[in-house]
């Protein structure tokens, strides 16, 4: 049976290749988006634990966590809570670095634990916070920056005092200025984007998050990557968009396979009728047709997995977010792509297979 399936697919290689290619495009899109989302999730993990914090406090109901606005006074109030060891404010400035728009500029209190947790890998910490900046090692590599050189942020030029590494992609792809300078650039006097909180020993993140959201209305706490993704409308939109694309890939792919297989069985009616005359049951003939549909889909899916892995990288470049999203290809992501491929084959092969079971061998053999 398998050898007949293989032979039938190989006898019309162009048709097989085009059908598989159509499926491959769908699967590649799915895999690329899943990899992108996984990368986004890992970036979100960084957002949840900026500066190695236990959790981050943001404004609730914002389109994106970076659009959050909180009052300056919140830091001191949070610092007084029994479950909080330390709290420090951050101002996040997006698209401030024109040469790398996806890089985030962090405005941080130089004495706060966020700034202090950065490991300086070249140069020094800023001696003059008003005129100097720290640059993440990843951004420095992209912009070919070294200590002593200049970095332009929102039209202002700062001397690069040093390069840092934190181990968090989001941070290492950005730059750090003083809180006051960033507020000035963002035109947000007396405001901050979020407060990063280091929990007291034995404090539980989830319990602390519940308490903060209860005691400080209008805030939301992000303590894990899933929350970070859900916190912004963009993350939710991406997740939903993937679902829609998966559904579309299934429908379009299945129609493509069904069309190919339906044409194939029309051309091969005599052959399939013959199989009935030599004692193949309807179920066996249908299995042959279904098997061909699944085989071409799996071929397409395998090609799609390869293209998807490549496409994920292209996608983050095209979206200009390569600085803070690194596509993460997981076995489960690839597995889902393959599952969709098999599902396309089953759905697309079902109708032609059903038609085969209703063929009348005599008419088919007579060519009518």
């Amino acid at each position, binding site marked *: *049976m398998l*050898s*007949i399936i293989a*032979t*039938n697919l*190989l*006898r019309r290689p162009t048709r097989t290749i085009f059908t598989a290619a159509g499926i491959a495009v769908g699967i590649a899109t799915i895999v690329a988006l899943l990899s992108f989302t996984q990368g986004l999730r890992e970036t979100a993990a960084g957002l949840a634990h900026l500066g190695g914090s236990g959790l981050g406090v943001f404004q609730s109901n914002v389109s994106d966590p970076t659009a959050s606005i909180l009052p300056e006074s919140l830091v001191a109030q949070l610092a007084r809570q029994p479950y909080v060891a330390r709290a420090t404010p951050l101002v996040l400035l997006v698209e401030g670095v024109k040469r790398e728009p996806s890089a985030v500029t962090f405005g941080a209190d130089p004495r706060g634990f966020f700034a202090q947790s950065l490991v300086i890998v070249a140069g020094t910490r800023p001696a003059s916070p008003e005129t100097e900046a720290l640059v993440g090692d990843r951004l420095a590599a992209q912009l070919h920056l070294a200590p002593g050189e200049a970095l332009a942020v929102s039209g202002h030029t700062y001397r690069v005092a040093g390069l840092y590494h934190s181990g968090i992609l989001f941070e290492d792809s950005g730059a750090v200025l003083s809180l006051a300078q960033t507020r000035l650039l963002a035109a947000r006097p007396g405001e901050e984007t979020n407060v990063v909180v280091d929990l007291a020993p034995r404090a539980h993140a989830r319990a602390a998050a519940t308490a903060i959201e209860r005691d400080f209305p209008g805030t939301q706490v992000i303590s894990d990557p899933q929350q970070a993704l859900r916190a912004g409308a963009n993350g939710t939109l991406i997740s939903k968009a993937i679902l829609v694309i998966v559904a579309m890939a299934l429908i379009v792919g299945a129609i493509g396979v069904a069309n190919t297989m339906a044409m194939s069985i029309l051309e091969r009616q*005599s*052959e399939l009728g*013959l*199989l*009935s*005359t*030599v*004692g*193949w*049951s*309807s179920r*066996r003939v249908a299995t042959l047709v279904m098997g061909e549909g699944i085989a071409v889909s799996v071929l397409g899916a395998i090609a799609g997995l390869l293209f998807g892995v490549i496409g994920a990288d292209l996608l983050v470049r095209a979206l200009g977010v390569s600085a803070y999203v690194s596509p993460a290809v997981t076995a489960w992501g690839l597995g889902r792509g393959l599952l969709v491929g098999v599902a396309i084959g089953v759905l697309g092969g079902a109708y032609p297979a059903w038609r085969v079971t209703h063929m*009348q*061998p*005599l008419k088919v*053999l*007579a*060519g009518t």
Partner: protein
Amino acid sequence: MSVPAGAEVRVEGVAKRFSGVDALRDVSLRVDAGEAVAITGRSGSGKSTLLALIGGLEQPDSGRVLIDGRAIWRQAGVARARRELVGFVFQRHLLLEALSARANVEVPLIGASERRAQRRRRALELLEEVGLSDRAEHLPSELSGGERQRVAVARALANQPRLLLADEPTGALDSYTSERVLDLLFGLRDQHGTTMIVVSYDAAVGARADRTVTLLDGALAATDTPSAVGG
């Protein structure tokens, strides 16, 4: 290779209509085990339909077909009955073009109990029997018309049928090749005792058969032995 002895066929009052037209009307026929019967008649007289009913390719609207006393057309078991009892040879050889001659002969055996090696050995034996052992790995497109028909005969014999049904087996062949294919078919019948029913316009088929049945407008018109036809 040993083929079991032929099956007895009884057709009892079968009728079949296609699109409101009577293809067969109350046809009854008995073919003894090992007998070779030729069915003749004008185009549209119902010859192929009768063959299809006997082989379980079509279900009669009324009446029944019994092979060795058992109705062939039982929905659940008709495919199995075809596989175990019946071999078909058609005017168009209907070989699978992408498969070699050997693989074509193996097709009826797929799904039967034989392993791949056994199937392969059986196919090669049959091709040797029809004189094509040296053409086993050739594609149908690489074979002559007569060779393709001989492959089709080998395929029909793959499941060791007790009933061989042939619909115009020489219709697309020249007279020399027709003679060779008929030699093969009737030789196999003589050798194995397989019951054979052959639909044909060809007088040579009638001359070789034990009996000739003539259909006219879907009904049985006459039954003759070769001597009666000739004489």
